[in-house]
């Protein structure tokens, strides 16, 4: 496994396995192509920018994305599964505060048989922030044995924060398994009470539970330095360390 730490606008993986780490992507548009039988792990952080990510996954290839979206900006993700047995796992964490406005639009197209996509989107909105998530899974009519999953979970930390979710499934085929779900809520009072009975203050319990919520995404990063820096970005954005 090779680590590349750079800012780039085009990634094409011809063979083998590779791990690409893009720390704070400045590229307006990034295209990724994962050629047959290869596998790519892609970590990225986007802070305050508008950016577009276009991904093509070919036959028997796998693409795993973990991305952190902080603050203002838009993230457009187009994933197209182009060859049989192509696989995509896309995990997104977002954190917003103050007057931040953020939009994530994801578009997954299953253009081949036996393709699978799994999406997990988890976000925390604080202050007066406003987040929009639009996610679409498209499965054309002649495709077989396709599986597509999309789960969006958001946590509202203040009464004036808003999260809007628009999930959509467009399925024109029969032999498919698809699921999607979206839940937007507040911190769990039972969990806060439990932490308090252990001597932890209410304020600290909020911080612990908020970080824990997004850790489901960041825990997937197997590079410790990067995982720590992602968690730090989240803590800074949501003022969890004060």
């Amino acid at each position, binding site marked *: 496994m090779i680590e590349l730490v750079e800012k780039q606008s085009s990634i094409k993986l011809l063979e083998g396995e590779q791990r690409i780490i893009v720390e704070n992507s400045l590229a307006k548009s990034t295209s990724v192509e994962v050629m047959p039988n290869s596998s790519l792990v892609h970590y990225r952080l986007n802070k305050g920018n508008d950016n577009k990510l276009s991904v093509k996954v070919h036959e028997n290839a796998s693409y795993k994305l973990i991305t952190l979206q902080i603050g203002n900006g838009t993230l457009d993700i187009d994933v197209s599964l182009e060859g049989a047995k192509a696989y995509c796992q896309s995990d997104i964490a977002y954190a917003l505060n103050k007057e931040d406005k953020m939009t994530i639009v994801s578009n997954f197209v299953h253009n081949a048989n036996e393709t699978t996509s799994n999406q997990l989107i988890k976000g925390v909105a604080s202050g007066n922030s406003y987040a929009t998530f639009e996610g679409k899974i498209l499965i054309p009519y002649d495709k077989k044995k396709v599986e597509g999953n999309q789960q969006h979970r958001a946590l509202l930390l203040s009464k004036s924060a808003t999260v809007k979710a628009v999930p959509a499934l467009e399925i024109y085929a029969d032999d498919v398994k698809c699921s999607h779900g979206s839940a937007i809520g507040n911190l769990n009072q039972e969990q806060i009470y439990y*932490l308090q009975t252990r001597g932890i203050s209410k304020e600290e319990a909020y911080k612990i539970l908020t*970080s824990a*919520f997004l*850790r*489901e995404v960041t825990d997937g990063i197997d590079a410790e330095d990067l995982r720590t820096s992602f968690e730090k970005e989240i803590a800074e954005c949501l003022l969890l360390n004060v």
Partner: protein
Amino acid sequence: MSALLEVKNLCVNAEDKQILNGLSLSINPGEIHVIVGPNGAGKSTLSNVICGDPRYQVTSGSITFKGEDLLKQNVDERARNGIFLSFQSPVEIPGISMSTLMKYALNSHRKAKGLPELDAVSFSKLIRECAKKFEITNEMLKRPVNVGFSGGEKKRLESFQMAVLEPSFCILDEMDSGMDVDAVKIAANGVNLMRSPERSFLIISHNNDFLYEQIKPDVVHVLVSGNIVETSDASLLIDIKNNGFSRFLNKGMN
């Protein structure tokens, strides 16, 4: 001897329904008290009210702990002053490991006492020692709090936390439910290991044999319809085991 915990004429509501009706209870340092009673009598309510659960409203009466008015303290203050609740069904907390939780909890306790945070070596030594007592593996400590554990494992993890935090008053709500015979023995051993002249226990259970044989409590109370209707020594457990609660039922308020 002045009582560690003194509950006087406590009335408690949950969502406008009265659950405790003028309950009084006094527990001295070093004593183990057991509360038995039919389902819905208010046993878990009492446990949670002592801890300050915001779902319940105390409408009258008082609770004094170590001579201080407990009702003026919030949940975490009570915990840092030495009250610990082993939950009947502990909530799952994904995204945070048991060992991280204990680090936060222990440091909160230490901070309140004006002590510095424990260094990493002393912390892991303490955690290992306590884990051993309740047969908690390293892997269990790394997993998210209460996620994917069996009922018995969850109870053992509650006991483990109790050992780490060294409270002066331990409430064990349904401490043996969902546990097999071996797990019950581990939990009972834990109570006996932690028993000391300064530490008191309030244990809620339906398993009279277990309480009588493994714990040997000092005092047994029968709670019916929100009030204590009988208080005696451990032999009361055998009486109830043989004769049930029926003779107490007409003594409750309702």
